[in-house]
């Protein structure tokens, strides 16, 4: 008995168990991240996962969703898009100014509301002096002469167009676009958000 115990502690089995458990955890994370990427659809720089929260998802999709978007709404309840890059693939940064241009009649169709929120790269809102942390269907956004709407995304006040300005964090940031009760054109994939265009 004592010999068995001595062998057990000398053999390194305990080390092996710890090693295996940590490797198993890291492998699980890698697999869930890979599945998460595989079920993410990206258009014009905006990424969304449409399959999360649905009963009937397989083990891998369930796990990938729990990791990427825990307890998220089903897509027909709320469509979520995120991006950390502009339309040309460059990382979003408070050192630049960006414009989101919705052509006339191309604001996202919905039966509830939509909103756009800048956050830090993890997803937390960052304090800004304007005390405005999102714009959406209830914001008094000015329309251009042709009926289109431009949203200005930059850290400092733009000087003009302040009505359509949303202050971004000063460093790298993430944009979250929510459409609750998305319309048919979003559900069937024909509607796409416009690119985030870097203005300067």
């Amino acid at each position: 008995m004592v010999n068995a115990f001595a062998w057990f502690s000398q053999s390194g089995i305990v080390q092996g168990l710890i090693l295996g458990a940590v490797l198993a955890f890291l492998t699980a994370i890698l697999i869930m991240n890979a599945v998460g990427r595989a079920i993410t659809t990206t258009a014009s720089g905006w990424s969304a996962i449409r399959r999360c929260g649905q009963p009937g998802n397989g083990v891998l999709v369930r796990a990938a969703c729990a990791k990427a978007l825990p307890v998220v709404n089903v897509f027909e309840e709320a469509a979520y898009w995120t991006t950390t890059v502009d339309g040309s693939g460059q990382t979003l940064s408070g050192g630049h100014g960006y414009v989101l241009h919705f052509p006339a009649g191309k604001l996202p169709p919905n039966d509830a509301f939509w909103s756009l929120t800048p956050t830090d790269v993890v997803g937390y809102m960052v304090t800004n002096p304007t005390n405005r942390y999102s714009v959406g269907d209830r914001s008094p956004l000015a329309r251009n002469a042709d009926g289109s709407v431009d949203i200005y995304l930059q850290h400092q006040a733009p000087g003009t167009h302040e009505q359509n300005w949303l202050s971004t964090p000063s460093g790298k940031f993430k944009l979250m676009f929510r459409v609750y009760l998305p319309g048919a054109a979003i559900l069937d994939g024909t509607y796409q958000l416009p690119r985030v265009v870097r203005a300067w």
Partner: protein
Amino acid sequence: MNRLVLKYGRPLTAVILAVFAWVIYRRIAGGDEIIPVAIAAAIVWGLGAPAFIYLWPRLTVSGYKRAILKHGFGDGPVPVNTLHAVPNTSSPSASRGSLMATGADDLLYVGGWLDLRKGPQVLHVPNMAGRYFSVQFTDPSKGANFAYVGKRTTGTGAGDYVLSAPGWKGTVPNGMTQIFSPTDSALVIGRVLVESDGDLPIAYALAKQIQLAPLKH
């Protein structure tokens, strides 16, 4: 904690792997046996990775369960079968690390943990008069949203919904709708639209009326 892991996940992983490499190197250099270590590690690795993936949704939802029942939403623990309405929308100052920290700032959140082991519960929703709202029921084993009450699924009128566990054989009172829960517990997340700052008290008064109560016999 979560935030740190998200931010420093890669360097942390690199450090852990470097420590492992060093431990293995020391064993080999010291002339100790490496085979038992390798076999034990391989077995645990091979069985553990699928186990983690299978259990991940359950671990995630139990994180919410623990947070709700032990800490609540800033006003103390929320007992089972009680829904707590958070009085404010999400903001940078609204307690980081709280359940709604990454939430939308146009919604009031309502949260609670449903436990049907002692019998069915009745979800009451007030008349929302066209206002967007939803109550999401999430299965703790799969992380799937098995039912919704709200504008999309049931409309915005007042209503009472009987949530029953698998195998419950009672009768549903007239005027109530039955929702079959696939498990005997569930995470409940409610959302109520806030139209504007001035609308906040009205939205909060409605959110507080979304409540659970035991089914009376």
